């Protein structure tokens, strides 16, 4: 390999690298999240991403930012049934939590091809169906607005050193992705009980609920919401839980991308961490409370959709099980996350 090529590789690495390396402060049991080689983590990019995340300049009319639909106090959801964009247009789905998104092999509710936070960030920014932040065709305008801000004139070059012009749309999404990867939650009461050596951190009801959650033919919940992140999105699986029969357009789930009939109604099993903060539930916010969600599963789904996950039929819950299961789910709330200054709006 000649020297010129080495230099080119080095330049790419530096341009995406963003200065000093990022030091993960990972909780016990959490592996380092996968990070694309094209966008290594750096403290500067994370900082820039945080500013951008809360900046309403990223919307067509200055009314919304990423944080409008991903509010820290609600574990980075918005409490709405479905999302509402900057122009008032409703999304067909509810805003997903960004908590621990770094560990999701697939992003969004049902797209098996959406695999990087960098790519995903372009959807709310520039998507037209529906309009979210509404910046399609306004990329130059967006970058102009950002250039005009002093803090960005400092942060963009720091985050993307060695480039002639750090103000690019790609760098905006890279920085946003870096910030989103840092939103890691693992300080719930259950974590203190399970890995923190605090046997009394949770109630007996939570401990009973844990057993129900993790037992086949009782809750069986862990089969789809398993692992440290209480989700199997790390392995890119999707499930039909019998919410509808048939699933009404436009929410056809994975079918929208694969056009296979058996994929109709299949959606991602999101993380259950902080689930008590993220009501209403399901991809379309059609279930209001955790109690009702548990009831939905206890009855094997509210419809007999032929593509229902067979595990739905194995769930057997008594009234006590349901109450305990809800107690367990509530124990997954990480209150510190909701006020962690690292994730809050920069002052």
């Amino acid at each position, binding site marked *: 390999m000649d020297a010129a090529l080495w230099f080119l590789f080095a330049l790419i690495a530096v341009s995406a690298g963003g200065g000093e390396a990022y030091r993960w402060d990972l909780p*016990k*049991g*959490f592996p380092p999240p996968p990070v694309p080689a094209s966008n290594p983590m750096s403290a500067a990019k994370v900082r820039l991403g945080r500013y951008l995340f809360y900046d309403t300049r990223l919307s067509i009319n200055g009314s919304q930012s990423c944080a409008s639909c991903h509010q820290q106090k609600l574990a980075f959801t918005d409490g709405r049934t479905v999302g509402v964009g900057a122009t008032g247009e409703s999304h067909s789905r509810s805003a997903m939590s960004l908590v621990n998104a770094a560990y999701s092999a697939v992003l969004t509710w049902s797209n098996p091809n959406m695999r990087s936070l960098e790519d995903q960030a372009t959807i709310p920014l520039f998507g037209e169906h529906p309009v979210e932040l509404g910046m399609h065709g306004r990329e130059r305008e967006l970058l102009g607005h950002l250039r005009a801000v002093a803090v960005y004139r400092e942060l963009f070059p720091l985050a993307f050193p060695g480039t002639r012009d750090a103000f690019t749309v790609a760098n905006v999404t890279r920085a946003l992705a870096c910030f989103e990867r840092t939103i890691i939650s693992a300080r719930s009461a259950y974590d203190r009980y*399970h*890995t923190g050596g605090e046997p009394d951190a949770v109630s*007996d*009801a939570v*401990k*009973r609920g*844990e*057993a129900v959650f*993790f*037992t*086949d*033919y*009782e809750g069986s919940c*862990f*089969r789809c919401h*398993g*692992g*440290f992140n209480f989700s199997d999105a790390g392995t890119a699986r999707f499930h039909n839980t019998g919410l509808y029969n048939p699933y009404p357009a436009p929410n056809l789930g994975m079918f929208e991308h694969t056009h296979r009939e058996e994929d109709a109604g299949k959606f991602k099993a999101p993380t259950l961490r902080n689930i008590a903060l993220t009501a209403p539930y399901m991809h379309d916010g059609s279930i209001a409370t955790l109690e009702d969600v548990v009831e939905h599963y206890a009855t094997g789904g509210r419809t007999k959709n032929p593509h229902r996950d067979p595990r739905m039929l194995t769930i057997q819950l*008594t*009234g*006590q*099980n349901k109450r305990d299961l809800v107690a367990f789910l509530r124990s997954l709330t990480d209150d510190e996350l909701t006020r962690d200054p690292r994730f809050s709006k920069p002052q």
Partner: protein
Amino acid sequence: MSTRTIVCFVSVLLLASTALQFAATGHIPHARHHQAVTPATAGPFRVDGNRILDAHGRTFVMRGTQLPDFHLKTAAWNNRGAEDYGAHSSTSLSAIRLRFNMNAVRLPLDVRDGASPEYLAELSRVVRRANDLEMLVVLAARDPEVKLPSAAVLDFWRHCAAYFKDYPNVMFDAFSDPDPSAIPDAHSPEGWRTWSGAMQNVVQAIRGAGARQPVIASSWKDERLFEGFTTALPDPNLLYGVSGEYASTSTDSQRDARFGFFAHRVPVLAVGWDLHLDDAAACAAIPQDPSEASALIENNLSYLDARHISWMVSTFEPGKLIKDLADHDATSLENGWTCGPAVHRYAGLGRVVQAHLRSSKERGLFVVSGAGGLDLGRGGFALAYGPIMAERDEVQTGPHPPAKLGGIAVHITDSAGVTRPAGMLWASAGWGQTNFVIPKDSALGPARMTIVRDDGSSTSANITIVETAPGFITGYSCRGAVKGQATQIFADGHTANSPISTCDGGPCRTLPVPMTVGSVTRIRLRASGIRNALPGAQLEVTVAGMRVPVVSYGAEGDQGQDQVTIEIPQSLRGVGDTDLACKLNGRVSNVVRIHIGGERPLT
């Protein structure tokens, strides 16, 4: 079936423990409650003060359950094919001994069933099964039609006690339910004189039949139990029973007033107590919160334990101590319960009692040998069930058991304080099961098993490592069809092999062992906990209650499994589905099923 149950699945490959000593962590476990096998029955028994002494002069305390009433017509229900095993079967009794760690059963007998030779012969089969499984049997006479022992009761005991007088591991419960309405004030001195006279008549009938075993005299059947009782009966070999109205919700001081007050003078046996969840009046005072209800049971057990009071809890029947007679899983309060008609069938105190007798926690790890018992043979195969919580289900497939499987490892810290990794055979995600091999170099005695997970969490349980813990390996739950291979050796020297069970196409079931006339049939049984038996060890294998020749035994490869090869005498030809069990140096194995095929001999 829930995986929150014992599932002795052993159809996975079992490979060698490559025990690697990697750490020394100081001496073991001064665990608050160390796990121990409840001492086996060893009669004849005698009473000395408030203690029951066994044949070796050791104090014996009963820890058991009640069996359903025995009737001639129910005797035939044992081992009802694919349905269940029947409460009086060896399989069920084996579960009581090994899985519940009990050492006694109480068998209610209706005196109206008579004392015919046929009845007593059938009854003695059940008694022998229980005795063979290291359990004492309390034969309890009941006559619902009378308030105090009647002539029929006395007559029953004359026959029954005479029949069982030479059974050292039997006691007699004179009369189950003395009815306090038999006299205006049952707890007055006059009431107790009446009770004493009636009981003394029964004791005399039993002694008159030549039986010297301890007799149990039960209190009035009301919540006051022995309140007001002052003068012990004259027979020196007597226990005092509290039953029927033993209230789980009583306070310690109430128990003290009702029977605890004399537990330091005479042996006391609490029998048949339960939560009575199906009785709206009886269970109204039981807390609705499962944890509080469990604590109530635990308090009762602790009260009795602290006073060395023997106890027989609940009944070994579906909806009481166990969920059903097929899997023998313990009932639980964890899933909630209702006072009155049951909304779901599996509420009961079984799991709390089981945890108590295993020094475990209701939601803790339960660790068992291949036989389903507490003792784990070193170098042998073991199972833990409960909060395994591996990252994923994973079975060991390579040539050697790894130290980690499914994101978990099992560490064994032995009585010398040395921690070694166990060879891993199976790990399940969630609440399930892990199979592993006890490191062969582990020191004997109390030890600790710890599941260490990749997520940084861990769960531990007390275990006991022994040299031998005989067990036979089945396809499911340590009972049912035993695994192995039959070999027929013909006169011309050729041989024919055949499996003796299968788990294909549904529940595991036995396959007939061919017994061609003129051939010799040997069966190589898959076993566990036998490899460390010394040459010449006393290994007795019985098939259909008959001792059969043991050809060889020992480790089967290095997978934590062993083999026992037996020869089936032609006299057993055509026996059909029957029990198989063994004793090794006096310790019993689980009871499993085998089918001896062929035509029955003409004689």
